[in-house]
């Protein structure tokens, strides 16, 4: 039995699992996550809920999490190097869960009117979205983490050992405001961490035992040996830290699956550097070959599409590309599934890794790897007052986002201002072109203010609502300080605020300036009337035709292009270098995630010809049809021109039909295109190289293409898992231009 055969079987099972997921869960405009459905007979009967089905506070989360891990169905695949798959998100098991609005045990109704007015995704009650430092766990193992937590609890005045049985309570909503309460919370948090670890250990032990059980019935000797090794590793990892490469990837997978189960956390790390020492030791000792290493990495990537970075500079500015980087990349190449691997592109890099990444992107057409632009990210993050060493350690480990593993709390990608909504408010209030900009500035400032107040509210209360029991363990500070990472536990707080809807607003401003101010072919009042009527009637249609055909953002040299830059200046003017009222640093970005449809529904017609309720634009991207010829370089230039430039990203999301992907020059040209974008200040490039005919056919009948993976935004997903409306957006974004 060869690894190729094992990989093929594992991939086929993954596709089948995805089909089952789609059948049972329906369309989801989200990451694939690697989640597997539990048996239908399984009932997740969480022990702690209040009368409304909610639970909050460290004890409740810990008790429920421990219960879930102790009862979690066991998944063992004799072809896999790794034991386990994850099946639940505890954070979504509270009643009334919505992706767009988290359950929160504290009243923030005083903020809600303005949050609604500007359609703000507040981040209040949002979890994860910052990166762990796996090295902490790899050094200590679960046993070492347990000792650390218990020692900390003793230091805070608590007991040395666990209570015999975990007791939860539905919610603890008292404010924590003086030192005695701080200490009480620290003890409670350590209790909760202890319970969480015990839960993970129980699950790990059960996985080991299940693998051992399977050896009794497995007839194939290779699989039987594999199961025996899987069992040995899991049983070892219950307490001990990993020592070999296979043990390390199993430990990382266990943490990932547990952290997913807790609250969907999907941040990875600098995977090549995490694995390299173990790989090199195993190789030197003759324990493994490169083929073994590649298979272990394949299984880790298959287990869960966590976000990992490879390549890029080390903290001291040397290139950290290694043989391990290539092994991971080749494992990803063989993984014909959803994957979120990012190659960090920088001046001092091993260009061969970059080239190989582009070759894989072109050949596989699965939307990965992604490419992140080191120069602008490092220089940008340093503008917030951080050193170059620290800036280099801030890596691409999320959909759009960067994080300092184990050091930083950010609310990345979960705080967004729908600027199309802000524009709508400003436009409705304006009677002339002259008033429009100042009204937009005024309302945008108000939107940022209430967003920042919401961030403070979250930071004030989240530790009592939903402490980060898993990510605390792999952060530098929470256990040492007895504080949740969201509440003083982290080393740095760099709170993200992203603008969404840039192209809609830039095109709206641009179209008005072009048609009303420059050409005088329409009056401001005519535009207002047409927008108010949703471009109904003959007059509305005439106005729409003119506004829709005005020069767009992305075309190059248009009024809308200038407005996109100005909107970025306005974004920066209110966010960059600013803090929340409580003094937490803010960092701006442009990103919409998969919320283009949801955001669009709240916004009436806009002067760029967009009708009420239609989706808003994606991230920093121009709207489809922004330019006919030269769209690729124009887009690369335009998106570089709107980079906020403070270390967070404004990704370039590119869907391109490269009919000529086989062209000998395609790799060089795509690299040149990205090099140019990065030289101009670009931060992250997500590319879907697609076969237009295939994607159009799949849009008509997704079931015919069960293995078609596309990069939806920062994440990849199976095309047939997306809703029809979202599939339509992906199709519309397609640029048919030869590279």
């Amino acid at each position: 039995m060869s690894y190729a055969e094992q990989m093929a079987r594992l991939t086929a099972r993954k596709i089948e699992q995805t089909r089952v997921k789609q059948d049972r869960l329906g369309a989801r405009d989200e990451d694939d996550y690697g989640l597997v459905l539990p048996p239908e007979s399984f009932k997740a009967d969480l022990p702690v809920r209040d009368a409304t089905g909610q639970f909050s506070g460290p004890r409740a989360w810990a008790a429920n999490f421990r219960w879930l891990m102790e009862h979690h169905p066991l998944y063992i695949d004799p072809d896999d190097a790794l034991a386990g798959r994850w099946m639940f998100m505890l954070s979504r098991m509270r009643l009334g869960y919505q992706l767009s609005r988290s359950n929160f045990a504290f009243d923030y109704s005083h903020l809600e009117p303005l949050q609604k007015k500007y359609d703000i995704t507040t981040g209040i009650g949002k979890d994860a979205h910052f990166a762990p430092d796996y090295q902490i766990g790899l050094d200590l193992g679960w046993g070492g983490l347990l000792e650390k937590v218990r020692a900390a609890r003793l230091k805070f005045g608590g007991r040395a050992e666990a209570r015999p049985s975990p007791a939860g309570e539905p919610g603890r909503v008292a404010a924590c405001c003086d030192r005695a309460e701080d200490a009480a919370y620290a003890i409670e948090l350590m209790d909760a961490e202890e319970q969480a670890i015990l839960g993970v250990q129980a699950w790990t032990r059960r996985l080991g035992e299940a693998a051992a059980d399977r050896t009794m019935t497995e007839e194939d000797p290779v699989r039987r040996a594999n199961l025996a090794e899987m069992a040995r590793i899991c049983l070892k990892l219950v307490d001990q830290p990993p020592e070999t490469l296979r043990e390390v990837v199993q430990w990382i997978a266990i943490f990932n699956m547990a952290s997913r189960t807790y609250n969907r956390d999907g941040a990875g790390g600098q995977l090549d550097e995490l694995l390299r020492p173990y790989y090199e030791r195993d190789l030197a000792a003759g324990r493994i070959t490169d083929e073994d290493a590649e298979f272990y990495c394949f299984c880790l990537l298959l287990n869960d599409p966590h976000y990992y970075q490879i390549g890029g500079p080390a903290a001291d500015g040397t290139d950290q590309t290694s043989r391990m980087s290539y092994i991971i990349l080749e494992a990803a190449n063989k993984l014909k599934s959803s994957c979120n691997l990012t190659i960090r592109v920088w001046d001092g890099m091993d260009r061969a890794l970059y080239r190989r990444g582009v070759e894989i992107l072109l050949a596989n057409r699965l939307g990965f790897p992604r490419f992140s632009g080191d120069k602008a990210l490092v220089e940008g993050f340093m503008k917030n007052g951080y050193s170059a060493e620290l800036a280099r350690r801030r890596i691409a480990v999320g959909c759009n986002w960067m994080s300092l593993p184990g050091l930083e709390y950010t609310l990345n990608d979960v705080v967004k201002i729908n600027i199309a909504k802000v524009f709508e408010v400003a436009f409705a209030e304006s009677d002339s072109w002259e008033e429009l900009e100042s009204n937009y500035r005024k309302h945008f400032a108000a939107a940022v203010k209430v967003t920042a107040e919401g961030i403070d509210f979250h930071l004030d209360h989240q530790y009592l609502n939903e402490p980060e029991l898993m990510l605390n363990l792999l952060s530098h500070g929470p256990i040492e300080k007895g504080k949740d990472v969201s509440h003083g536990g982290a080393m740095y707080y760099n709170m993200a605020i992203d603008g969404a809807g840039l192209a809609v607003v830039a095109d709206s401003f641009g179209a008005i300036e072009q048609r009303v101010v420059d050409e005088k072919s329409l009056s401001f009042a005519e535009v207002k009337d047409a927008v108010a009527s949703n471009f109904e009637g003959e007059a509305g249609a005439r106005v729409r035709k003119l506004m829709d055909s005005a020069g767009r953002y992305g075309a190059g040299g248009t009024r809308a292009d200038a407005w996109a830059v100005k909107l970025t200046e306005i974004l920066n003017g209110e966010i960059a270098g600013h803090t929340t009222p409580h003094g937490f640093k803010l960092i701006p970005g442009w990103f919409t995630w998969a919320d283009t449809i949801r955001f669009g529904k709240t916004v009436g017609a806009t002067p760029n010809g967009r009708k009420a309720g239609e989706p808003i634009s994606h991230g920093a991207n121009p709207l489809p049809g922004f330019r006919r010829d030269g769209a690729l370089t124009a887009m690369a230039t335009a998106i570089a021109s709107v980079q906020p430039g403070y270390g967070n990203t404004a990704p370039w999301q590119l869907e391109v039909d490269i009919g000529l992907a086989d062209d000998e020059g395609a790799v060089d040209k795509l690299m040149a295109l990205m090099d140019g974008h990065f030289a101009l200040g670009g931060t992250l490039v997500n590319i879907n190289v697609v076969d237009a005919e295939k994607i159009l056919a799949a849009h008509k009948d997704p079931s015919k293409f069960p293995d078609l993976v596309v990069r939806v935004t920062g994440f990849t997903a199976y095309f047939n898992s997306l809703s029809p409306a979202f599939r339509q957006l992906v199709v519309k974004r397609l640029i048919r231009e030869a590279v």
Partner: protein
Amino acid sequence: MKDGPGIRTSVFLKGCPLRCAWCHNPESQAAEIQRAVTTGEVCGRVMSVDAVMGEVLRDAVFYRTSGGGVTFTGGEPMLQFDFLKTLCAAARAAGVHVAVDTSGYAPWERFAELLPLVDLFLYDLKCMDPARHAELTGVPNELILGNLRRLDAAGAKFWIRCPLVPGLNDSDSDLAALRAFTSALRNMEKLEICPYHPLGLEKCATFGLIPRYAEKALPTSADLARWRQALPC
């Protein structure tokens, strides 16, 4: 991005003295600004050298990262010679790699004047047989072949581009003649086959023109293989 090395901006200059049967840019044949009969869309605009260069330089960074530049094409760019020459000089002054995509059907003096301003000529060879050439393109090929020999002798860099159309100019003898002619050229950097594409048919309909060659199918892979085998590309 296909007209020459690297990432390039193609500047289309309207007007062409040839009327190739398979023309895939029929909207560039007339020198005048045209309006599409079906969509009303306007084809062509009057631009200053500064306006063209403004557009061209917008992508300067990509020329550097890719080894690309600007390609002046058409139509036949030599028809607007003074404008072309000024553009070439402006691009050269801005440090941008300059390519001129030409049918070769222009007085030699124009090529001679452009030589110091152009980094690369993309030079079409459509058919070696004089009578057949005239039949297919509307003009004889002596001037074209003569200019190419002189460019070669002058040490200019050039790529030969052969638009090949099944049944029109791809017989074994056509290909053999092309091979014989091009193998005598000392400075040819590359020979590119440009397979027939029916894109021009749609454009003819848009602009109310009647195509002389109305094949809707792309060349077959067998055609492509035969062409590649017969020519030094």
